C-alpha cells in the first residue's frame, strides 16, 4: 500500500510543515530542566556513594569486631589446646589485632567529616540591574530551579540581592533576569565548564 499523495494531501502537509515560532525563554527553560536533571542524577550518585561508604565503614567495623571477638575467644580457648584447632588461632590473631581497633575510629572520622562537609554557609549574591523587574539565581545548589531563589531589589541602589545557604565547595551559578535573560555574575570568575552552552560563574564557599 503506497502513500496517496495527491494535491490535497500535499497542500495539507505543506501547511502542517510550517515550523512554529519558538519562544527563546522556553527553549532556555528546556536546557535549565536538563541541567536540573543532571544535578539530580549527580546528587543521586553522590548519595549512593555516601551510602556505600557508610555501609563499607559499618561492614569493616563489623568484620573487625567479629575478628576481635573470634581472636579473644580463641585467645581464651587457646589456654585449652586440646579443644582448639591449632591453625585457627594463629591465623586470626595478628590480623585482628591490627585491623579491629582503627576501623571503628575511621568510621567515626568519616561520619564527622561528612557532617562538617554538609553544613551550609550563608552567602550573599548581588547583581546590579536597576531596569530589571525580576531577578532569580539558578545554580547547582538549587537544581537550576528558576523559582527557588528570587533576589530582592534595593530601590535606592538598583542592586538585587539574596542570601542563600551553600555547602562548602565549588558552585556554578547564573542569574535569570526578567525570566528571559540568562547572565553570569560579572563580579565572579566565569565557569570554564559553561553549562549547556550558557555562561556561568564560579563561587568557592568556605575556602580561603
Amino acid at each position, binding site marked *: *500500500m*503506497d*502513500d*496517496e*499523495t*495527491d494535491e*490535497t*494531501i500535499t*497542500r*495539507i*502537509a505543506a*501547511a*502542517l*510543515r*510550517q*515550523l*512554529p*515560532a*519558538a*519562544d*527563546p*525563554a*522556553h*527553549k*532556555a*527553560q*528546556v*536546557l535549565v*530542566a*536538563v*541541567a536540573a*536533571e*543532571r544535578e539530580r*542524577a549527580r546528587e543521586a550518585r553522590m548519595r549512593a556513594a555516601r551510602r556505600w561508604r557508610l555501609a563499607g565503614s559499618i561492614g569493616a567495623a563489623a568484620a573487625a569486631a567479629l575478628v576481635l571477638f573470634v581472636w579473644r575467644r580463641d585467645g581464651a580457648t587457646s589456654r585449652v589446646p586440646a579443644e582448639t584447632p591449632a591453625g585457627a588461632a594463629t591465623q586470626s590473631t595478628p590480623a585482628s589485632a591490627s585491623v579491629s581497633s582503627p576501623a571503628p575510629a575511621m568510621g567515626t572520622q568519616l561520619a564527622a567529616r561528612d557532617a562538617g562537609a554538609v553544613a551550609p554557609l550563608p552567602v550573599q549574591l548581588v547583581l*546590579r*540591574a*536597576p*531596569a530589571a523587574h525580576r531577578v532569580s539565581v539558578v545554580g547547582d545548589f538549587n537544581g537550576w530551579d528558576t523559582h527557588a531563589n528570587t533576589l530582592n531589589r534595593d530601590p535606592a541602589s*538598583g542592586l538585587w540581592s539574596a542570601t542563600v545557604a551553600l555547602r562548602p565547595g565549588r558552585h556554578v551559578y547564573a542569574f535569570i*533576569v526578567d525570566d*528571559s*535573560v*540568562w*547572565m553570569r555574575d560579572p563580579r565572579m570568575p566565569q565557569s570554564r*565548564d*559553561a*553549562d*549547556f*552552552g*550558557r555562561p556561568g560563574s564560579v563561587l568557592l564557599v568556605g575556602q580561603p
Partner: protein
Amino acid sequence: MSRPPALQLIRPSAEAPSSGSAERSLLVRSAQAGDVRAFAALVDMYYARCLRFALHMLSNRSDAEEAVQDTFVRVYRALPSYVEQESFEPWLFRILANRCRSAGSRERRRAEFVEFGEVPDRASDHRHDDAIAWREEIALALATLPTEQREAFLLRHVEDLSYDDMSAATGAGVSALKMRVKRACDALRSWLTEERNGRRD
C-alpha cells in the same frame, strides 16, 4: 543601563549545525560522552520540529511545550542507553510520541486551534485570510483523527520519516502504519471536502 544580551545557545562550533547525519552522529556521541554543549546543539537542532509535532498532537501550546521539555529531559536521561545502530530521529520521536500520547490521554483534547504564526487582530488582505482559514481547517480536520492516525500521518507527511523509522518510533508494524496513513489521508480529504461543500451551501 543597557539591557543584557538575550539568551542564546552557544554552539559547539562557529557554524550552525546542519541536519546532516554525520554531524548529528558526532553531536550524539559527544553528548553521550558528557559534552553539554553538544546536547544543547541537539536541542537547538530539533526543538522546532519537536514543538511542531507536539502542537499538532496536543493542539495546545503550553501542553506541547511541556511535552517537548519533558522529552528532552528524558532523552538526556536515556542517552547513555542509546545505541547508534538505531537512528537518532526515530528514537527521539518515539520518546516524544509516547509523551504526547500520555499527555493526550491525561487531558483529552481541548477545542483549541493549533497556534501557528500570528493571527491578525483585524482582517487584512483576502489571500492572508484564506491562508489562515486553510490552516485552521486543517487543524480542525487533524484534530478529528484518532490519535494513532494523526501520529502516523504527521510522522510520514510532515516529519518525512520512512516507514521503517516510523515503525521504530511507534512500535507498530509497517503494514499497520501504512493503513493508518491511508485512513488518515482519506479522512482528511473527506473532512475538508465536506467542510468546503458545507460552507458553499
